[in-house]
């Protein structure tokens, strides 16, 4: 045969029958590789990568008497990201590209704060938080519903609409933060310059003390939410409708589904959950700000996709990304020559390498063969 002389050195072949543990191993390898690249960059910054990573991954809790504060911060950061990612996965499952998480979060936070400032300070803390969440989810949900309604009615592009609402919401937030006026309940009355006020005590997040550590109520809620979303997508009729509409709108219509209703309902839920996350965030950090979202609307998109829209995967990915973010803030405070934005850089590298690993899960690279039989078993239809 003459063909072997002409065969290219490297070929890409589709993989078949890859096992779950192999997939886990590949992802793990990808993360380690990304950390390796990060280590090289750290060396350039004249920091010891081992010390840096140790501090980052342990959140500097080892032998630290104040470790519980780190855990509290960690939970505080994790909750909004987890809720937002779950909420986005609902819309993404339906192939509705809700990239308006930021806007929905801001508006939810504003609505939550409005309830906090308006409710009598004598009100019960549970009632107050409950009403804040209701207000946040209603406002967020209605904004989401409006983009869905425009989509089904006029076939507008949901990506553009949800994106643009992010900026509108951001500037509404800034408007309230910078406009000193009698009606502006969000600002501190005693300050000459416009400044966001702290919410009253009865709107502050309820915590359950476990030794020195206090567990936020919202963490328990979010764990419940994971279970609910998982069950909803997998076992309910509405979850089934989301899957069918996402897969083929024609088929959904043919099956007698009210496609427009499904789109509007799901988008309302997605945005309402994000709005609720915003309200909970206000209750948890005690004040509004124009950085209150901490970019969860964007990070949530990454989390949802890295987790392949699987609720359990979303828990794992968001837990890891939050470690990265909290950890690098902690670590950079101990390493004067490494900026806290190193986390963003590292996150980018990890994302890139994990996506590359994704490629290797679906395909494999075959070098010019020496053994014909062996190779023939590797190909796939």
């Amino acid at each position, binding site marked *: 045969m003459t063909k072997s002389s002409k065969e290219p050195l490297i070929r890409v072949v589709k993989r078949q*029958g890859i096992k779950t543990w192999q997939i886990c191993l590949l992802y793990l390898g990808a993360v380690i590789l990304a950390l390796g690249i990060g280590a090289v960059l750290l060396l350039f910054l004249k920091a010891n990568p081992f010390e840096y990573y140790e501090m980052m991954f342990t959140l500097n809790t080892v032998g630290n008497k104040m470790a519980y504060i780190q855990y509290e911060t960690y939970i505080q950061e994790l909750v909004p990201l987890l809720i937002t990612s779950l909420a986005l996965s609902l819309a993404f499952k339906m192939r509705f590209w809700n990239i308006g998480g930021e806007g929905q979060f801001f508006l939810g936070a504003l609505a939550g704060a409005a309830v906090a400032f308006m409710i009598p300070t004598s009100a019960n803390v549970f009632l107050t938080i409950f009403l804040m969440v209701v207000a946040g989810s209603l406002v967020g949900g209605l904004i989401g519903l409006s983009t869905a309604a425009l989509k089904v009615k006029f076939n507008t592009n949901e990506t553009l609409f949800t994106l643009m609402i992010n900026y509108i919401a951001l500037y509404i937030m800034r408007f309230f933060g910078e406009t000193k006026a009698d009606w502006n309940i969000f600002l501190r009355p005693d300050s000459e310059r416009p400044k966001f006020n702290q919410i009253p005590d009865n709107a502050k997040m309820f915590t359950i003390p476990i030794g020195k550590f206090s567990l936020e109520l919202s963490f328990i809620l979010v764990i419940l939410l994971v279970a609910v979303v998982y069950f909803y997508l997998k076992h*309910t*009729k509405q979850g089934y409708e989301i899957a*069918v509409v996402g897969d*083929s709108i024609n*088929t959904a219509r*043919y099956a*007698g589904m009210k496609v427009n209703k499904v789109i509007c309902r799901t988008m309302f839920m997605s945005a309402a959950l994000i709005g609720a996350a915003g309200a909970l965030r206000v209750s948890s950090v005690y004040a509004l700000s124009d950085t209150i979202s901490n970019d969860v609307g964007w990070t949530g998109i990454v989390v949802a996709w890295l987790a392949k829209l699987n609720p359990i995967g979303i828990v794992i990915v968001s837990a890891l990304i939050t470690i990265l973010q909290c950890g690098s803030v902690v670590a950079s405070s101990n390493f004067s020559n490494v900026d806290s934005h190193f986390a963003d850089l590292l996150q980018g590298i990890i994302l890139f390498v994990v996506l590359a690993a994704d490629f290797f899960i679906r395909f494999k690279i075959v070098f010019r063969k020496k053994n014909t039989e062996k190779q023939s078993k590797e190909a796939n239809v």
Partner: protein
Amino acid sequence: MDNNIYAIELENITKTFGSVVANKNINLNVKQGEILALLGENGSGKTTLMNMISGIYKPDSGSVKVNGVPVSINSPEDSKKYGIGMVHQHFKLVDVFSAADNIWMGTEGTGLLLKKDRYERISEISNKFGFDFNPRKIVANMSVSEKQTLEILRVLYYGAKIIILDEPTAVLTVQEIRKLFDVLRRMKAEGHSIIIITHKLNEVMEISDRVTILRKGEYIDTVNTSETNEQKLTDLMVGHKVNLNIARVETTFDRPLLEIRDLSINNDEGSKAIDSVNFYIRGGEILGVAGIAGCGQKELCEAIAGLRKVEGGQIIHKGDNIVGLPPKAIIEKGIAMSFIPEDRLGMGLAPSLSITDNMMLKNYNKGKSILVDRDSARVKAQEIIDKLGVVTPSTETPVRRLSGGNVQKVLVGREIDAGPNVIITAYPVRGLDINSSYAIYDILNDQKKMGVGILFVGEDLDVMLALCDKIMVLCHGKLMGVVHAHKTSKEELGLMMTGAKDISLINGKVAGIAKDSRIEETKEAEVE
């Protein structure tokens, strides 16, 4: 040229995918100026073999010779270099480009600029082979047949001498097929070698010089077309004798189940797709719908299923007008519609979902519970897999991983399982091999015996003549008449399909209105 030298020659080609042997020791050769038909059932390895010639796959072993010289084809570029061109079943075109730009895109050595003369140069080639073709037309605006013409032109433009056509007639009308065959003959006369993959035996007999038959990935035989016939080819292809006759089950007809009166429907562009059409289906009857592709068949099916707006007229089901009802209500009345679109997956199935999940597509909403009943869907999926012989690893396999025939079995199986009283089925055997097709005909006949009324929108006139009780013919959305299948002929149907014969109004009697219509009955009742 020496007669012993073949334009392309394959020897002992073997290709495996994982544990599946797709091709085993295949031999195939084509002379210059010859048309070779490659015949085989679904999954017999035809497309795999052709993909190896066109450089998409590489054989595990065996040799390929072009003009007697051993070659190694590692990529589509290699294949192009050796003068091999393939026209795929699924067109590979850029929708927003013009025809000429699609061709120009892959041409080597034309520089970076779009030259103005590309239109003329492409017209020249298309005239040479007798195509009627506008190179400035945008692909998105083209009909299926025009797209195919473009694909063929493209390989000719690249200078291909060996041309492979993968099921080119599956998407064409009778007239278009005739045109295509004229072109193929002209190409043959020019000295091109052509390999044509098809399921349709009459086409094999008509166009090919020789036939190579594959069965389950193995090479069976190569025969001269002039020395064989359809029966012999079928035997070679399926391995055992298949009765080509489709049994028409005799049943006693009930009163009309579904009556269509003066029905008018628009297509997506807003022009009339169905124009004042009358017909009716009785229980225990199969009514065939014949017509050139795109004559309103799709719109008719969609309108009956409630998926398309009805502009005028009535659809009476058991005496009730169902025009304007939502699809769900129509499903609940027992009207099942299964439309197999050209891509086989577009309507009726959710391709990424499992067979189980697709089973509950139409009845997931039954009962008050907010939960879906996946357990009984799984049982149903297993039943259909067993009963219809669906080849699948499990009930949880996504439908899109199944081969075409199995996808259709899943769809038809589900529709019948719902126990409908009217079945609307369009192209149920599209692209299926003989055995799978017969399995579907049997299913339909069983339903007919049970008193179900069936509307069968078909392509193959032979099948319709054998299977249907009556055949209605559409031409540009108008009813040309309804004929009894055992009293008509292919010629008559052909004339009606092209509009040359219109028997929709004879002696003042309008075709498609039942004598014992339930519509008149209701009207009379109202008068009384």
